[in-house]
């Protein structure tokens, strides 16, 4: 039953993902990719439960390493996306004024 439930969640999320991205202007391709990449760092949540849970020593080590890498992805991903989007803003402003 649990597996079926997870399957439903999976299927609905995939359809939602397909629907969410439709018409994206070319300038937003890279920021959108980067923003989506930051979301895929959600694996940090899984890593946290493994690194802090009652696991064997080797699994805790792997979990801690996973926390490190996933945090790099999350923090770096969101910051880089923000910088990219900020760049568009400063570029667009002079155009509006002139």
């Amino acid at each position: 039953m649990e597996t079926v439930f997870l399957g439903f969640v999976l299927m609905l999320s995939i359809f939602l993902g397909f629907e969410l991205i439709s018409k994206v202007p070319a300038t937003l391709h890279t920021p959108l990719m980067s923003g989506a990449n930051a979301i895929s760092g959600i694996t940090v949540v899984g890593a946290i439960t493994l690194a802090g849970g009652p696991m064997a020593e080797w699994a805790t080590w792997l979990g801690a390493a996973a926390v490190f890498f996933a945090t790099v992805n999350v923090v770096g991903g969101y910051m880089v996306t923000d910088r990219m989007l900020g760049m568009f803003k400063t570029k667009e402003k002079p155009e509006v004024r002139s």
Partner: protein
Amino acid sequence: MSVELIGAVYIVSAILFIYGLKLLSSPATAVRGNQLSALGMLVAIVVTLGSREIIDFRWIGGAATLGALVGAIAARRVAMTGMPEMVALFNGSGGIASLLVGWAALDMGSGEDPSTQTAFTIVTILLSILIGGVTFSGSIVAWGKLAETIPSRAITLPGQQIITLLLLIASIGCGIAMVMQPEAWNATLIYVVVALSLLLGVMAVIPIGGADMPVVISLLNSYSGLAACAAGLAINNTILIVAGSLVGAAGIILTNIMCKAMNRSLSHVLFSGFTATKSAT
């Protein structure tokens, strides 16, 4: 915090991810979209830290601080022209995180008896290792090609298709062996799967030319979402499944849109290395 409460908060964070992605795809709202999605991530992390399962915060604190520092410095320092490379590196980082989560999940529920792992768990663990590994090594190769540490032209080895096919068959073989004999798996086989996945990632990206790298990074981004999703299925975590499959699906669509914008077909980009081998022979 109870499991129900955590689940409810995960729903909030899923809504923030979905809405954030939606806003990210329009120029006027993109900045807010990114912030909302970051907020969703923060909410998910904080509520997970409050989970009863977590008994030791030392490792988490140390690793997260270090990771945040590295990520922040890298994101600050990178030149605007170097953004795609940086995204590739971050993406690879997420890929290897999913690989490690899958690997560590081997220990879950195996306290007394390793054979308590169901076939479903084993398959999802293998998938997260395989996809995570391909994402990691593929992203590193993509980064190398963009930074020109690796020649950016399409590199084809003799018999490339056959090697890739054999690697794929070998990984499936390892997977079947692990499902058949769950108690005998602890040591060697998992190392083999990790090695195979890393090799597969290299073989998948190395025959693709540097000009197509943005599309490849977008595709690998989709893979890293799928890896997170597989890890979520392995450790039974809904927010990993939802966010991972969202990114997986959105990434595929985005890859396709990028291909169209560059006047290329997705299959052409993916198999360009293979066709180059064919025309050379």
